[in-house]
């Protein structure tokens, strides 16, 4: 397929994708067609990478749309694949014209890692970002702030970060993140409180109606006292401390053997 043909397809894709009520299935078709077409260009082979700036830019733009499209179709593995391919274009082809979407997508990728609790990948990805952008780019800062609040435990701030997302694609991941956080808060509360009024538990967990709270309480196996409207957490104080006989015997035998060896 000639480059003109691919270009035509790419334009059709971006037109379809950017239209207000985009047909996502159709975009998907375009994308798979384009990927086949790009293989014939220099999309996968990087031997003489400095030559085809036009082709490479085209490939990058297609991949960027692909990444965004995967989020709209809520397909995380596909998003990760697109991001992995884009990394090469962002890091190794410094001669390409800069993409306006670059940092937005990198920010999304960070959030994606965060929502899956892959903190070490998150930090590794963070290191590859230019320090200047790291401090000033709103898309990147958003993810960094989020991670900080998560580590500290300021879940309130995570919740409020919903309102100031850099672009609407972020909401998808933040919603996933909220579920994770809710479980975090619940496990913290179990340890920190002996009992908690249901209404307050609701505010802590960002629930608005009582039914959700009760369902959630059931899921976490909290004892709910309907009369007092309070949830009780099982305390761990009545746990007995057993003497770890097995372990101690093993250790003592180990000492005896080694002492024997020395003497």
């Amino acid at each position, binding site marked *: 397929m000639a480059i003109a043909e691919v270009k035509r397809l790419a334009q059709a894709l971006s037109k379809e994708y950017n239209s207000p009520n985009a047909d996502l299935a159709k975009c998907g078709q375009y994308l798979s067609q384009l990927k086949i077409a790009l293989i014939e260009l220099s999309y996968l082979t990087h031997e003489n990478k400095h030559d085809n700036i036009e082709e490479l830019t085209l490939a990058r733009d297609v991949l960027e749309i692909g990444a965004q499209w995967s989020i709209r179709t809520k397909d995380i593995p596909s998003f990760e694949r697109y991001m992995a391919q884009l990394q090469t274009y962002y890091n190794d082809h410094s001669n390409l014209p800069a993409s306006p979407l670059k940092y937005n997508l990198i920010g999304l990728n960070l959030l994606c890692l965060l929502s899956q609790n892959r903190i070490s990948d998150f930090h590794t990805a963070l290191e590859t970002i230019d320090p200047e952008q790291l401090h000033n780019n709103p898309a990147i800062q958003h993810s960094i702030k989020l991670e900080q609040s998560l580590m*500290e435990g300021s879940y309130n701030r995570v919740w409020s970060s919903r309102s100031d997302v850099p672009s609407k694609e972020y909401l998808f991941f933040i919603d996933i993140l909220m579920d994770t956080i809710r479980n975090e808060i619940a496990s913290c509360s179990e340890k920190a409180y002996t009992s908690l009024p249901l209404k*307050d538990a609701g505010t802590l967990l960002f629930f608005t109606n009582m039914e959700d709270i009760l369902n959630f309480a059931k899921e976490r196996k909290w004892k709910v006292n309907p009369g007092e409207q309070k949830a009780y957490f099982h305390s761990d104080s009545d746990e007995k401390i057993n003497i770890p006989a097995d372990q101690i015997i093993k250790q003592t035998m180990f000492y005896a053997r080694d002492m024997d060896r020395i003497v």
Partner: protein
Amino acid sequence: MSEAPRRSTRLNKNQEDDSKAKAKPADQDVEMEDTAAKAETTPENKVLGVKELEALAIADIKQHFVLFTKSAKTHEARFAIRALRSVSSLRKRLTSAVLARTITSSYGKDDESRSRLLGYLGSEALGSITPEDETVASKVETPEVDVYLHLLVMIFLLDQGQLEKGIELSNVTVKMVQDLNRRSLDQLAAKVYFYYARFYELSERLAEIRPTLLNAQRTATLRRDDDTQSTLINLLLRNYFHYNLYDQADKLVSKTTFPENATNNQLARYMYYLGRIKAIQLEYTESHQSLLQAVRKAPQNNVTAGFQQEANKLLIIVQLLMGEIPERSLFRQPVLRKALVPYFQITQAVRVGDLNKFQETLAAHAATFNADKNYTLILRLRHNVIKTGIRMISLSYSRISLRDVCLKLHLDSEEDAEYIVAKSIRDGVIDATIDHEKGYMRSKENVDIYSTNEPQHAFHQRIGFCLKLHNDSVKAMRFPLKAVNQDAAEVEAARDQERTLVQEIAEADEDMDEDHGDL
């Protein structure tokens, strides 16, 4: 592109450190060159000193030739290693005249290498060739000597800062080493790759040589060529780090095994790189171990100051991230004191759990931290500061309202404080409960530690350590063979040899890290 500014700051730092580390030898070079230049103009009988020095250097090089030839013939690596060890002391005495004379006397007149090497030395050097050099000219016997001469010229060009020429020559030499494909070249090859990468690094073209290095690394691994392998792994890691490609670096580490017989210097570097990768991946315990090893394995002298500083900076941060406070004496060491000032202030902020002070220090030294590539790591400390703060509060108050916690820690709101306290309780930072209705936090009474299994655990750890130490020492003991039959004279001779060897090693250690002093 956007990477440019960072790269340039890194470069500046590199050069700074480099010049610091090399200040001494470089000065000497300049001095000697001045005198060498004078030597050509003044009558010969007055400057016997310079001539003698030259002659000595040439004699040394010739001596190395013999060693290399011997090593190639007997298939014994130790002769080559011995020659390479003294390269560092020779390096200070290298001048264009010495090199030119050695080259002319070592190659035949029409040899290709001769004209090439002389070409790199410049016209000034040609003037110093004396007729007797030409007459004694004999054919180079082995390729080892050929490669060694190339290496010497490379080192000379590096000291002179002639990067363009250096890149050209190193390309030729690397090609030569790969084409020759001789096991006796292993030790030389490691050195050649080292300077090859160094030239590219100083010219900001590191990304280009990655495929070459990877290829060479594969070959070296297949041949179990420990020296080249360890050098190349470190070069590749350094290469990835230069562009912050920690992901790739991590994959390289997980796919390769670092040779056990590598020299201490290479091992120290490798441990430092490993520590950094692990720190970024939040595996602080492993990172801490690697960094400790790096610091201990590195030669403790002024030449390696750059490396020591970098490794210690990282070590301090990792210790803080683990919740430990580095020892005060570390910051007082003369080599480290100045470089560690910003890190000292950060440590103080973390120790007292003062969030405001932490932010101030961070802002004040942001540029330093960025240059050290430690900024993101330090950002992570923020939540350690909060944790320390909460622990202090929990220890000092048996009951405190969440509002006061919020004020003391400078948090945004009471709700935030509640979440944070709850999380610290879950993470085991403090032992307390929160009363939500009345809005306070109550610390639990201290439990008697001796009623738990904790002492048993600590006891086991210590005994285990002692036993391991004993077993390791037993394994490490060596007994001389046939020691009884040896003559007293032989023993004396062996001792003498050992003494010179030890001295050479010490000298080599001092110089090994000059080039990577900054790491």
